């Protein structure tokens, strides 16, 4: 099966800014593929390159080395709108002063389908409403986004991404700042979208357990490089996690049932750093 998206030996470096880091951040030799219909979780410590990866995938940044391909075609050969019809990004949130309603937000997701159109047409409105229905925010449509709680806001933003009718849904830390309940809801929603619509999902998360719960495969990034790529059980290896994150962990597997769970060993265990 041809990969939906593929990174081939991609390298990237932010322009060196002495104020920010002791040494400039670099992504190096990044190679992996996303198969259609799968859920891939990208994990790793902060500044391991997770967000940079999303930016490279959506052409917000250009790689310094290597190639990225989407549906077999080089990313740089895709037009911006065409790319947005394939890949939709769910950012962490929107600014607090975002003034639009839920429906207006979701309709923005229709832009890539007809950038030249001034107002959205009835087909756009239908698609937006369907997307809102899928994430359960349809009855919140006329409300100002700023008036919603964290979970509802998240679902509204996902609805906007769905309105783009993408093949690949990319989520950047979807459960950061969310209550436990919404973490469960989000996980369920993603699984449903994946199973029922065949939507490919790329999920970037610092929450190892969420990623393990939802994803078919995990990509562990460390220092801008691929540390491991594979099934959750392979990637969530105690020694590997401990060395990448620099702390002691225990990985539990309820034999056979469900994904491995990572437990942080607060001040106890292996390295004895207390």
């Amino acid at each position, binding site marked *: 099966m041809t990969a939906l998206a593929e990174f081939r030996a991609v390298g990237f470096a932010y322009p060196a800014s002495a104020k920010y880091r002791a040494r400039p951040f670099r992504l190096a030799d990044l190679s992996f593929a996303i198969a259609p219909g799968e859920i891939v979780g990208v994990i790793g410590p902060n500044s391991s390159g997770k967000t940079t990866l999303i930016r490279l995938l959506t052409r917000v940044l250009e790689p310094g080395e290597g190639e990225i391909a989407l549906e077999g075609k080089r990313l740089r050969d895709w037009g911006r709108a065409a790319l947005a019809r394939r890949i939709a990004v769910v*950012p962490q949130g*929107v600014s607090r002063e975002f*003034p639009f309603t839920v429906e207006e937000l979701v309709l923005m997701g229709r*832009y890539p389908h007809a950038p030249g159109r001034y107002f959205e047409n009835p087909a756009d409105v239908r698609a937006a409403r369907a997307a809102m229905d899928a994430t359960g925010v349809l009855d919140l449509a006329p409300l100002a986004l700023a008036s919603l709680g964290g979970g509802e806001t998240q679902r509204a933003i996902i609805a906007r991404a769905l309105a783009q009718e993408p093949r690949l849904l990319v989520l950047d830390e979807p459960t950061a700042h969310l209550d436990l309940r919404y973490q469960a809801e989000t996980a369920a929603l993603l699984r449903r979208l994946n199973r029922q619509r065949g939507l490919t999902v790329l999920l970037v998360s610092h929450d190892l357990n969420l990623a393990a719960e939802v994803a078919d495969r995990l990509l562990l990034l460390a220092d801008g490089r691929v540390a491991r790529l594979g099934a959750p059980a392979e990637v969530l290896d105690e020694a590997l996690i401990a060395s990448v994150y620099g702390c002691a962990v225990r990985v539990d597997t309820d034999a056979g049932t469900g994904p491995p769970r990572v437990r942080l060993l607060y001040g106890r265990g292996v390295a004895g750093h207390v």
Partner: protein
Amino acid sequence: MSPQGRLALVLGGLAGLLVAVAAAALFIGSAPISPGAVFGAVTGRAAAESVERVVTLSIRLPRIVVAALAGGALAVAGVAFQALTRNPLAEPSVLGISGGAAFGVVIGQSFGLGLTVVQAVGLTGFAFAGALLAAAAVYLIAAVGRAVIQIQTLLLAGVIVGIFFASAITVIISLLDFNRLGGVIHWLLGNLAPIPPGALGLFALLLAAGFGLVLSHARELNLLALGEESAQQLGVNAERLKLMIFTGAALLTASVVAFAGPIGFVGLVVPHTLRMLLGPDNRLLVPTSLVGGAIFLLVADTVARNVVAPAELSVGVITSFCGAPFFVYLLRTRYRGAL
């Protein structure tokens, strides 16, 4: 109601109001002309060189057209700058362009380069040159050495350029001969005056270009509220959008300042009022601000030229008088138009 419906309704209402206000303004002025005489002049029945014909068609009518065009342009430029910088305080004068134009005019007026030279190039030419200089400076300061224009840098650059030109103007004024001072200060207060048809056509053309640039990107401006990165991920070319909007708004501002002097507050009062009525959708705000701004400045100018007749107040004085209290009101109430 769908956005299209709301736009049609409000735009229709505003357009009707504009026609009514313009017609009324034609009948109000310091020359004592009866309504019947004005009507006669408009319908072409007045004698060729009669007072009512000259006053109505050569003084009042051109001035009304200028006021409407300038007001609309300033309001649209205000919407554009506010959306671009995501800052509700952004106003055409904030980005230093009015300052540059004012500087150009002060240079032209104070060196009094002989009656003929100034007439040939026109103070308008000086003002426009100054405005373009300022706009280029602002853009270059924000752009040079970077791949991407940071909006905050643009705002800062605008403020700095504006302050620089304001200081330059002060220097020149402080050295200026007493007799020329009155004229320069008069210009700096912002005054509308009737413009000959040729110049008026040029003015309208420039405004149409600026307006077109802003209007054609109104939908993308909405997307900018998501943040530049998200907008790009939706397919918007953010760099090009910033350039187009800046150019359009700068063109509108420069033209108005060149032909009518620096007039403040229109770009603040009108967009925010309409935002309270219509919400934050720029596709509605841009066209309605054009008409709303026209009405606002037309009313302000009619007041300015009649309230202490035969003396005339500067229209800039009226807009500030109206604008300042309104701004206080805005600050104290919550409104959905927050950017």
